[in-house]
């Protein structure tokens, strides 16, 4: 009887041991997965701002918005030693902009398109103008056209003019050519040209046959800086 009692306990303890190991393994894996889902870069964010930033990012991701620009904005604020409330406000505002862009462009819009559209909206480009670009260029990627529209708006080109120029150019040339066009525009402005006039001049050039835009340059902004 005593042996029977001991053996039953031994089996019970053995079963409990295996169940415990399985439970520990499950908890460990769940914890690791949960930890991996939170971007490790967020550990650099101001500790006072981090909980709110993480909450905003989680909500944004749940709504189908990209996390990357929100993380970047939080890191930017931290790097610039901005106060925590300012960081949280900036991330929240960007999440709102991305949400507006998503609503505008639809659920199929890619992250790069949402970022560019959010920039354009932030520069005051009306929603109708962005919708027009999407309607006119719907069968191609919109990230570069929308980004160019935002950058033109940043240079003070009126949204309608910017949109007309981008649509006309994007119908004829590739994204690489659009970026070359923008680089040419930046060069003209740096040399003293007035943005609207320079944009119009380039629009005419693009609309004309034999534009000369070959597509070899693929970037704008960084290269070929001039002395300020």
């Amino acid at each position, binding site marked *: 009887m005593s042996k029977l009692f001991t*053996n039953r306990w031994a089996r019970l303890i053995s079963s409990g041991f295996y169940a415990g190991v399985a439970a520990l393994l499950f908890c460990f894996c769940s914890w690791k997965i949960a930890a991996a889902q939170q971007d490790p870069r967020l550990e650099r964010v101001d500790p006072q701002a981090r909980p709110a930033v993480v909450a905003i990012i989680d909500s944004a991701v749940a709504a189908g918005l990209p996390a990357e620009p929100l993380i970047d*904005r939080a890191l930017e604020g931290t790097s610039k030693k901005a106060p925590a409330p300012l960081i949280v406000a900036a991330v929240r505002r960007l999440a709102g902009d991305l949400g507006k862009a998503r609503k505008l462009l639809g659920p199929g819009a890619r992250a790069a398109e949402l970022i560019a559209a959010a920039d354009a909206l932030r520069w005051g480009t009306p929603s109708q103008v962005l919708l027009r670009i999407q309607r006119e260029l719907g069968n191609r990627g919109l990230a570069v056209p929308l980004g160019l529209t935002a950058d033109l708006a940043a240079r003070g080109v009126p949204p309608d003019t910017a949109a007309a120029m981008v649509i006309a150019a994007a119908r004829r040339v590739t994204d690489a050519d659009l970026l070359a066009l923008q680089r040419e525009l930046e060069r003209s402005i740096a040399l003293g040209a007035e943005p609207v006039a320079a944009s119009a001049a380039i629009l005419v050039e693009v609309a004309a046959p034999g534009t000369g835009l070959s597509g070899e340059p693929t970037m*704008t902004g960084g290269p070929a800086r001039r002395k300020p």
Partner: protein
Amino acid sequence: MSEQQDELIQRVVEELRRPVALDSSLDERVMARIRNEPVRLPEPRRWLLRPFTLRLSPLGALAAAAGFAALVAATTLAVVRSGWLAGVPGSAGATPGVAAVPFVLYAPDAHSVSVVGDFNDWDAAATPLKPAGPSGTWVVTVPLAPGRYRYAFVIDGTRWVPDPGAPLAPADDFGTPNSVLTVGS
């Protein structure tokens, strides 16, 4: 007398040579007895060296397999998300569509210049520029995948300035304007 002894011995031998009929359940009874014996803790060294048999129910085996798969997936995900692979030679440069983007700033009075932006997680120490001769021009080339990036230059570790030759980024949320750069595919 001798004949009687021989006969006795003969009978004994015959008895011993007769096959023994064992109960067919003897093996089971013996093994059951052994299994029911209380477990004695072995010496640590013997315990470490002694092979053992792990018995799992089908459900337990499934749980263990699922746990192992989850562990591998979590580890892989953590490694990828940590960016550790980005430091492996050839992993970043081999990415198709990555362009080498030069950043140039004219800052003759600067002692140090770095470019900080979305592409380096806004780490001011990540991408320092190098002086290009005595002219006061600072240069660095950064491999960038297609995308739209916000960035700025940091002069002497304290002064943030936008790129004078690039469009400004919107939403100057932190009091220091940024530039924006688009890299095409």
